[in-house]
Structure formats: C-alpha cells, structure tokens
C-alpha cells in the first residue's frame, strides 16, 4: 500500500504570497494514497527536514512529495532527508511550485490552480517510484595513454606522478610526436627539443610508466574502470635490453629511404632511430625496406652489432591489458595541400610547408640548421608565407581555423630575419589571429623585424627563371601584388589523423565531421568523451598549439586521477533497464546510445514445452547515463528508464492535464 506524505513549503513568502498553500494542503489531502500533508515555512531548513523525518516514522510514509522550489535546487537535500529516515532516497518527488509557479505568476487563483496540477503530477509520479540503488563498479587504477606526443607525455607524467600506473602507447619507434620536429616554439622562442626532451626522458624513466613504442591499440572492450584493451606490439627486430644504441648498425645498413621525421628532406636507413634524441634510443628495423627481409640475405647490421641485439625472428605480440581509464592523445596530420595545384607544391621544390621549414631551420635537421633553397642550396633572399592553406576554405579544404599557423608563421618570419640578414619576408593572410598570452606582441615583433603582412589570398605561384613568382592580391589596397620569391612556405591546415575515425570506433567515442574526437560538452566537459572513462588530450580533439595541448594533457590526467581517487565508482541508479520478457532483441535501441551501454545477450526461455534461446538487449548500468533516448527507440517499451519510466511519465501526463 502506497502511503504518500506531501510537504508544502511556503518558502517564507516566496511561494505563500502567490499560492494559497493552505488551500493546496486541503486539496492534496484528497489525492489518491495521500495519508499525510504538512505545511512548512521552510521545508529545506533543518526543522523542516526534521518534520519530514518525523512524519515518515509516525505515519509510516513510504513515498514523499515536497512541493517547494526546483528539484535542481533541493532534490539532493531532500533525498538525503529520506535516506536519513531510512527511506530510499528515490522515493521522493518534488513539485516545483516556486520557480515554475509562484515566481512567474501573479494571479493567486491561477497560480494556486496550477500548483494543484503540479502537486497532482508529483503525487501521481511518486506512486510509481521504486527504490533505486546506486551500483558500484570497481576501478582498475591503471591508465592507458594512446599517443606519445606532448599531450600524451604530459598526461602520462601527471597520472604517473599521482602514483598510478600508466601504459603509454606510441605507434612510431619513438615518443615525442610533432613537437620533436619543431625547432623553436612561439611566443618565447625557446628550443622545442630543449623543453621536450627532458619530458620524454622523464616519461621513459618514470617508475609508473611503461613505454610501449612501435605499438598500436587494436581492440577496446569493457567500460569505465575495466577496459580490456588489446595492444599490438610490433616486432622491432631489436632486443631492446641488449641494445646499447651505439649506432654501428645504422651506419652500416645499406638500405636507404627518405626520413619521415625530416619529411623526406633527409635520409634514414632500414635499421634506424628516427632522430638522435629519440626515446627509447634503440633502433627498429623497417621490414619493408630491409634487404634481409626482402631477399633473405644481408644481415650486415647483425654482423656489426657487438651486443648481439638484432633479432630478425621477432614476431608481433598482441597483449591484452586491463585499464581503468584511457586517454586518447593521437594528435593531428597536415592537410594534404595537393589540392592547391596553383601553389605549385610538388612541382617547384622551393614551395615547402611550415613543417619543412622547421626541419630546415632546426640545428639537428638535414641542413644542420642552415636555411637553403631545396632547389639549389642557395640562401633565400625573399621568402613568401601563405597562410590558411586548407584552413578556413570550405571549398577546397576545411572550414575551421587551425589556430597555430598565424603564430608559427610569425615565428618563422622572426627566425628568418634573425638567421638571414637582409631577408625580405611577405606574409599573405586572411586575418591574423593572435589571441594568446604574448601572441599579439610576438606578431608585432615579426612586423618590426620587417615581415610585410599582405591581406589577401595568393592566386598562383609559378616559376620564372630560378625565382618563384607569387601572384596575389592586397585586399586592403585593392591592388594586385606580385612578389619574386626564393622560397614559398605554405601554412597548411591541421587535420585529424586519417585513421582517427577507425580509432574512434574502436574506442566507442564520437568524432565530428572533420574527424576530430568529440568532447562530452564543448564548454563544461572539454576533455571528457561521452564514453565514461575515456578522455581526450591535444590536437586529436581539434587544432591546438602547444600550451593548449599541454593544458589539456594535464586536464585529462586530472580527470583520470579524479576517477582513480575512488576505489569504486558509484553510478546513478536512474539508468535504462530492460524487461527481458518483452524485449524482442531487435536492438534498434543500440544505435541511439551515445555511451555504448547497450549490448545483446542470450537468454533461454521455456515456452510451451520448448526451450527458446533468443537475444535480448542488456544495459551496462555503469556506462548508461540515463538519457532515455533508447526508451523511445523501443517500440514495446521493454527498454525503460528508472526514475523516468514510461509508466511514470504516462501517469504524470494523465495527472497534469485536467
């Protein structure tokens, strides 16, 4: 038997001045199963709550309605009140007669009539309330960080420093990522390697971090606190513990190819470390290039390895590990600007990208830090920078701004002016976006040093003699501009990794139309995804510069640490639930779940002497966040939402209408 107690709050005069609370009390007493009604000046006050506790005991109430303010304000308060009176906290329903009634209406009769409907609704709903219990999920306090760029390194270090184990997975032979390719960083012009390398070493040496380079995530199952992840550790063909990193092997190796790290500007061998500061500083064998793997003969490296570390027979190993949380920090790729044929990239060797220039400027780069024209090795006298190649161009590229290009172009201009006395630099831009600490000043410095900013797009780049002619327009002057340049540098857009969508599907997280992973909320949950326990850091979520990337790495780590601060996760019990007897197993509910909380399972049913084995939907209460989108996809109503059940909402509609 339902025994409902209704507590009507005056909220001082906030409610009582507009709603006739005594009349409402009289009305409420006549509603079905209402056995007790009480008015309080302030129900949320300690005496008010005490009255509820007393009434629950004295009148054996098993359902409570509080007609007061918004449940967004005090639902938690009154749930605690119920709990302290040994009543399940979910047997409470609030009628919002303040924010939704007394504060927005003036006519006392109308407001009171509406308050009656609101109380009637609450009484009708609470009758169908069931005791609900928070479920608890044990947390495996071990994190997986995918991607060993600065975002992943930062996240891994911050998690590890909090005392939790981390596995840092990187698919390249070394960690470091994009930042390792850069020479200097804006706006302070400190050396990228100088600030990154110590962090790489820290990550490698941290007692809580396992560094798995040359490895990739293949499969992710499970859920927050308990992800089961399969990771492929590719065969490096080197016994890492035996290898001393002496370099004899790669010096002798006869197979050469363009070094990806230098974007093909320099060369590497089949057995190689991508760059001198690589971590781990042990080589791998590129089996597609290696002569031994292609022909079965060579083994020069093995012969020269005094440590006996070369192991051709190594095989890929797929390991399965359990993690409580995952940080995706897989970074970005450069926009394929081949679509801008008019800029002559690929045709003229002196048309390069910003990242190429980084390698040319870098002291450890293929030209030992001397900026030379790739075509003839001459020092360029005139350099043109073209901004927004791909960015902000819906027709040919992407609609968004890549955020970092304005500043790195300014950096490049500054560095060229410092390195090459008398150089002329021109920057073709659409807008200069310098919204960061010290950024505007940095941009001004580039101009002071002589960089000439031309507002407008470049129409064409063509060769004339050994010069490149850049045809553009100065939209501020409304005049055509023509510059004879030695070097043209394209600021290409940052795009999502070509395989980001496939990783998103593996992880069960969503991605936007550009392939960047989607955060749970653009403002309030910037590093969380909709899949509990999976977090984002860095440019895999959208274009970013280094400061933002590092901040996000730390933020993601904070979220992981937050999760790991608990031994068990308590999940809100207002989650979806399946009535298996009704479920047809069509699983049309499944695609509507943003949290991948719905799966299928097999049940056996006895029916008319036959055993029927069939599939039904099942909800992982730990993953479900209780949105209820699945309930509408379910035609039978087998999928229901606790706390907002079909029965309850129908009863609310029935009660609220007349």
């Amino acid at each position: 038997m339902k025994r409902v107690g209704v507590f009507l709050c005056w909220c001082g005069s906030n409610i009582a001045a507009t709603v006739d609370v005594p009349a409402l009390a009289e009305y409420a007493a006549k509603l079905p199963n209402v056995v007790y009604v009480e008015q309080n000046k302030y129900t949320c006050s300690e005496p008010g709550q005490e009255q509820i506790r007393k009434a629950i005991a004295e009148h054996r109430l098993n359902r409570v309605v509080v007609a007061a303010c918004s449940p967004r304000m005090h639902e938690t308060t009154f749930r605690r009140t119920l709990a302290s009176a040994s009543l399940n906290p979910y047997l409470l329903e609030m009628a919002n007669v303040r924010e939704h009634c007394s504060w927005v209406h003036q006519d006392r009769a109308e407001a009171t009539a509406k308050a009656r409907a609101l109380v009637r609704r609450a009484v009708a709903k609470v009758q169908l309330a069931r005791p609900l219990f928070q479920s608890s999920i044990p947390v495996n306090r071990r994190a997986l960080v995918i991607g060993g760029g600065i975002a992943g390194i930062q996240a891994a270090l911050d998690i590890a420093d909090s005392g939790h184990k981390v596995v840092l997975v990187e698919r390249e032979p070394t960690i470091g990522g994009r930042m390792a390719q850069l020479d200097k960083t804006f706006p302070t012009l400190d050396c990228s390697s100088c600030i990154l390398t110590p962090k790489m070493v820290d990550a490698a040496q941290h007692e809580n971090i396992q560094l798995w380079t040359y490895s990739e995530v293949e499969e992710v199952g499970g859920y927050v606190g308990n992800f089961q992840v399969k990771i492929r550790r590719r065969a490096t063909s080197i016994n890492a513990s035996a290898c001393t990193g002496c370099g004899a092997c790669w010096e002798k190796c006869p197979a050469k190819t363009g070094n990806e790290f230098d974007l093909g500007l320099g060369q590497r061998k089949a057995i190689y470390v991508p760059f001198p500061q690589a971590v781990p500083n042990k080589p791998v064998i590129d089996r597609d290039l290696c002569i031994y793997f292609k022909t079965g003969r060579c083994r020069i490296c093995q012969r020269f390895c005094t440590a006996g570390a070369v192991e051709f027979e190594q095989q890929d190993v797929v390991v399965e590990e359990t993690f409580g949380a995952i940080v995706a920090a897989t970074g970005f790729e450069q926009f394929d600007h081949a679509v801008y044929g008019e800029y002559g990239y690929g045709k003229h060797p002196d048309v390069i990208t910003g990242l190429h220039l980084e390698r040319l400027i870098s002291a450890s780069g293929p030209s030992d830090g001397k900026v030379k024209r790739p075509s003839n090795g001459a020092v360029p006298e005139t350099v043109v920078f073209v901004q927004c190649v791909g960015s902000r161009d819906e027709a040919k590229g992407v609609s968004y701004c890549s955020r970092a290009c304005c500043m790195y172009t300014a950096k490049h201009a500054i560095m060229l002016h410092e390195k090459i006395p008398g150089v002329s630099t021109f920057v073709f831009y659409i807008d200069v976006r310098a919204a960061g600490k010290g950024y505007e000043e940095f941009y001004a410095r580039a101009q002071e040093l002589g960089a000439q900013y031309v507002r407008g797009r470049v129409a064409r780049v063509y060769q004339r003699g050994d010069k490149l002619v850049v045809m553009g327009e100065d939209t501020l002057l409304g005049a055509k501009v023509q510059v004879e340049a030695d070097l043209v540098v394209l600021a290409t857009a940052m795009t999502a990794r070509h395989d980001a969508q496939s990783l998103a599907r593996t992880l069960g997280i969503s991605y936007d139309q550009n392939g960047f992973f989607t955060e749970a909320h653009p403002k309030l949950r910037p590093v969380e995804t909709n899949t509990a326990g999976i977090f984002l850091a860095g440019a895999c979520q959208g274009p970013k510069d280094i400061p933002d990337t590092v901040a996000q790495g730390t933020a993601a780590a904070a979220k992981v640490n937050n999760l790991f601060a608990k031994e068990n996760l308590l999940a809100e019990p207002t989650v979806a639930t399946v009535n298996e007897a009704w479920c047809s197993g069509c699983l049309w509910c499944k695609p509507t779940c943003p949290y991948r909380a719905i799966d299928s399972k097999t049940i056996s049913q006895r029916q008319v002497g036959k055993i029927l084995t069939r599939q039904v939907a099942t909800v992982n209460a730990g993953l479900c966040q209780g949105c209820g989108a699945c309930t509408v996809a379910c035609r039978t109503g087998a999928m229901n939402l606790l706390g907002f059940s079909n029965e309850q909402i129908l009863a609310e509609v029935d009660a609220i209408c007349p």
Partner: protein
Amino acid sequence: MTAWLDALRDHVREFLSEPGVDVFIGYRAGRRGREVPAFLTRPEQASGLVLGPAASGALAKYVLEEAAGTTGRLGVLARGCEALSLQRLVRDLRVERERLHVVGVPCAGVADLAKLEASLGALEKVESCGERWLVTAGGNRHDVDPSQFMEERCRDCASPWPQQCNISFGQAVMSPASPDYSTVAALEALPADERYAFWIRQFERCLRCFACRQVCPACSCVECSLDLVDPPWLGREITVPAQAMFHYTRALHVAGRCVDCGQCQKVCPVGIPVALLNRKLARDIQELFDVQNPFVPGEIEPLGKFRAEDREEFM
C-alpha cells in the same frame, strides 16, 4: 503459362529432401479460387505448390512462428514485397538470414478477390498469363485486365521483383513503379478539420482486431506495447481517441521500417486505409532525411540515426 512453376516445384522438392530443412512456406490451392499459405515438410508435397494473383502475399510473418524453438532451415516463396518483408525480419534480428532459403518468383500483382467476385461471381481459379489474368468464375473463363482488379497497393509497387533471394525463377512480369503519393497529398491539401473528420470516420470503424499488426512484417515484437495493460500505452477503452492513439502508435512504430507491402490495409475488415498512414510517414522520411528508398530495409533505421545538419524547424 507459368513455365517456371515446374522448375520451382522441382527445386522445392530437392530442398525438402536436404537434411536440416524444416519447412517450405508457399501457397497451395484453396477453396473458392483462393490460394492459401501452405507449409510443406515432405518432398512429395512440392507438386501442390501454386502461385497466382489469388495468393495473398503475406508469407513472411509465418517465419516467426516457424523459426521459434527450431533450428532447421526454412524455405519461403517470395515475390517482391514478401522478399522485402523477410529482409525486414532479418534486419530486426527476428530470424537469422542463414536459416532462410528465399525462393524468388515473379509477381503479377495480387488480386482483389472481393472485387473479382463482385463482378464475375463465385471464383474457381485466378491465373496469370503474361500481362493478363485468366479468371474462372461462375463457370466461365474470363480474360481480365489486371489493373482493374489488382490490390491498390500493387498498382504503384516499387519492387515487384524479389531482391536478395537464394534463388529465383521466372522473369519479371510487372515493372517497378514509383510510389504514388497523390492520395497523401490530396489529404494534406484539405483543411485540418476536414482531415480530422476523415480520419475519425476511419478510426470509428476500427474494431481493434489487430489484423493490421498481425500481418505486418515490421510488427514483430515479442510483446506489443499495445497489448500491455501496464504501462497503459493504449487504454483498454474502445473510444475514438483511443483508436486514434492505436493507429498513430502503430504507424510511428513502423515508421522508417515499413516495407510498403500494404498488407495492413488489405486485411482490414472494415476498410481503414491504414497504408495511407504509412505512406505519409515514408514520404516525409524520404524528404526530411534524404532516404533513397524509404521501403528498403537499411542498416540503421532513419529514426535510429541523425545528421547534425538535419533540418532545423525548432529554433
């Protein structure tokens, strides 16, 4: 006449001789010129298979009962709409495709038997012959123009030829048409009150016999929400608003999943144009969500997915 019929019977005979085969669902001759669903389990029964315009076209739904609690393979005879219906059941995970042996046959349209009887008298046999029908009725043979006596749903059938079959016999008789939405449009053009009056007049006749649901290949739920007393989605009361709720719910539940077989309307004993509800939703789904053919079962139903750039009318 139907040259492929012997080949079909031979095939079914062989199929029924294979191990692990439970049943072949087809048609056999019934009384009064009817062709009724037949459940063949022995090879020798194959010679009784028939298929003419009198066959109702609602075989797919039988697969559910036949497949429950059994593990063998099920053969089903399928014309265009029956094949789509089977795809529907497969997409809704109500039967595994591997268990089905779908035998495609051409469709010459399904006959409106009541109409034939009304103009030609007691039926003895309805056969298709090329693009004509031969009807034996009242002791005489008539050569009739099918378009006069075809079920309404067959006249603008988009998929008379069965797709995704294991094997098929014969050649297409009817060519695919595009769905005719003119009746939907005509209703839309009415003032709201007249449209309401039209539907209420239809719903008033509703007996709630659930034939439209029982025959529907998209209505394959283990439990139908409309049967449940708790929660009371549809009250037990038989009133016009409740009948409206019934039809509204039924139509929305099949929205995006309807294969336009038209059986719901065909079986209605009181002539409610049920398919006119489905057609409206299908056309809107096609227009709103850019669905190529709203009647062909897809990987995910149009209401089970979205595009961020979907039409915005609710700002």
